[in-house]
């Protein structure tokens, strides 16, 4: 029934050709209701799982090589295996989607909350735990409402809570509201927030959440999209799952392509089967760059990802291809920038995000991101100094020492530096702020130099509002 068209009630979603593992119900306007869910195989995966031994469910997920869809791309089954035999233990669902350019978990929560709930129960069952917290970003009240209604209906229908589907299995899912903090997407910050604290990441090692997480008990934090895969996986099995995608990255990804393309949208795409070129220029996808302009650069995996350029267009969309090429697929957030884009201005905007969202715990990040923003702002405003370019790189090196991951540039004989970067901070937020800086300076140093050389005469200043925030 794929029509390769926008689905009006699921803003931005494009119902294109290809297998649908997590977005199959999106074309239905009432996809978020229990009625639609049950009429289209909802909770069948859960019922199948409940007839299996918990360890067999976990083994199936491990065998399917279900890679985490939140950003790091770590196999969920392996992560689950890190839990020591200690109880109580908890599952925490990360629905705090806020990486710049990322738009897929909100759709999954708003359009198919029952699929997510079913995925949660399957995971809880496999992990042998009975309390799951579903942490949804505060600025997403529609997702909150849809999940609250879905949970209420599922509890009433005996699909969640006490004696699920008439069995001895009892599992609670508690909907939790965030309140606006990007850093809470980091799993230990998420746990702190869920404990009612300021959402600051915890130092690790020695303890990772799987061993000591929520209330210092074993805790698995999984992304919304990761868990949304489980119902299909249970029904169809791991062998069928692995028929889609690539060997190292089975299944699909929900990808949001935004910026300068003719048809921006959210597409469910098999991993490792299409390239960025296919996505940007293919008629089944974005249909070309806006106004048929030339591509200048693109972000392959959210604001934290080093930039790619024309030379990387043929990289295939899977973590194991994008990482060695010098960036990351991250949260499936692809931002396309054409030749009209001011590299300094774009760089500043991404850096400013990290400066605003730094939690302040680690000095290199708290001070570094702030200075990165100030220096970039003065360059853009025409007050840059000749030493500012090296100063930016020096500040970056304080946060992320060594050679920062970057894409290859054959014209200047530069090879790719693989992901991830090193860090002097507890979490990757600070190092992420270095990505746009090293990416932009390495490729567009002359633009920085021109702005500095021309000073305030270069052009009108780009007034960025709200810098007090």
């Amino acid at each position, binding site marked *: 029934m794929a029509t390769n068209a926008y689905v009006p009630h699921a803003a931005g979603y494009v119902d294109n050709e290809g297998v649908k593992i997590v977005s199959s119900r999106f074309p239905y306007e009432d996809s978020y209701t229990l009625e639609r869910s049950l009429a289209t195989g909802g909770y069948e995966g859960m019922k199948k799982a409940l007839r299996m031994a918990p*360890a067999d469910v976990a083994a199936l997920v491990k065998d399917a090589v279900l890679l985490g869809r939140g950003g790091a791309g770590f196999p969920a089954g392996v992560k689950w295996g890190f839990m020591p035999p200690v109880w109580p233990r908890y599952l925490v669902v990360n629905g705090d989607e806020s990486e710049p350019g990322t*738009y897929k978990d909100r759709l999954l929560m708003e359009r198919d909350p029952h699929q997510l709930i079913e995925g949660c129960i399957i995971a809880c069952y496999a992990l042998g735990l009975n309390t799951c917290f579903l942490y949804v970003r505060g600025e997403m009240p529609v997702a909150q409402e849809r999940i609250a209604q879905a*949970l209420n209906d599922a509890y009433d229908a005996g699909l969640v809570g*006490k004696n699920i589907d008439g*069995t001895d299995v009892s599992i609670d899912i508690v909907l939790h509201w*965030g309140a606006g903090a990007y850093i809470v997407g980091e799993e230990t910050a998420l746990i702190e927030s869920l404990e009612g604290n300021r959402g600051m990441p915890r130092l690790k090692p020695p303890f990772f959440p799987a061993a000591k997480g929520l209330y210092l008990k074993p805790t698995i934090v999984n992304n919304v999209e990761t868990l949304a895969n489980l119902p299909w996986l249970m029904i169809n099995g791991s062998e069928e799952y692995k028929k889609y995608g690539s060997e190292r990255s089975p299944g699909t990804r929900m990808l949001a392509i935004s910026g300068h393309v003719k048809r921006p949208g959210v597409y469910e795409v098999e991993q490792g089967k299409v390239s960025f070129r296919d996505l940007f220029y293919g008629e089944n996808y974005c249909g070309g760059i806006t106004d048929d302009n030339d591509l200048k650069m693109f972000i392959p995996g959210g604001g934290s990802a080093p930039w790619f350029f024309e030379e990387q267009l043929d990289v295939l969309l899977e973590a194991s291809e994008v990482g060695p090429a010098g960036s990351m697929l991250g949260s499936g957030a692809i931002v396309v920038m054409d030749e009209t884009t001011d590299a300094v201005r774009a760089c500043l905007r991404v850096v400013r*995000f990290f400066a605003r969202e730094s*939690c302040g715990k680690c000095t290199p990040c708290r001070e570094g991101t702030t200075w990165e923003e100030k220096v970039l702002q003065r360059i853009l405003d025409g007050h840059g100094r000749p030493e500012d370019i090296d100063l930016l790189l020096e500040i970056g090196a304080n946060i992320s020492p060594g050679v920062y991951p970057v894409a290859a540039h054959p014209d200047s004989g530069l090879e790719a530096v693989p992901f991830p970067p090193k860090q002097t901070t507890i979490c990757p937020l600070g190092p992420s702020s270095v990505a746009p800086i090293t990416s932009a300076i390495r490729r567009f140093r002359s633009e920085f130099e021109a702005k500095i050389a021309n000073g305030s005469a270069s052009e009108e200043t780009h007034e960025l509002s*709200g810098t*007090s925030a």
Partner: protein
Amino acid sequence: MSRLNEENVALAHEIISRYPRKKSALIPLLHVAQEQEGHVTNEAMEHLAELVGVTPAEVLGTASFYEMFKFEPQGKYMVNICTNISCQLVGGEELLHHAEKTLGVRPGGTTEDGMFTLEDVECMAACTEAPCLQVNYRHEYRLDNSDFDKLIADLRAGNRPEIPDHGTLGAVRQHIPADRMAGIESPETAGTPAWFASRTAQSN
């Protein structure tokens, strides 16, 4: 008086009952407080401290970390315009400037009539629908200046009844009937679920 009212105290107790430790309920309870008054008051924070068994300073410590919590009166409608990269590329900053001129306030400011508070905000997960904004966290997509003007006119005229006042979050709340709840236990005393032990033993 801006402690939680009677209805919200009952709601607070229900929310607290869903967490193994009371303090975990703090952020949801701060939302309840903000919903009641439009912003979070000192009295409400003192009340929440009593309800979850921490000090008022700890409540403020948590609340002040999160951008959604406001400690002063806000406009009836909070207009949050995204200027992050996906929106910037297609006119998010220009939209913000237009909004500043139209409303006559800078980001963080509230119009004199108390109708609108303007904010410039970070990515709101609608990147393919840029430039976008939220009114009291309800999304509006692909706006140009005239769309913005119409939105403001509609809000002033009361033509957008589906958007609740600032502070109001979900119109639907989770409610678990007591007889349907598996049971939330203290992390100090909770053990292996009986079903897991028996099913694991069976399979071995």
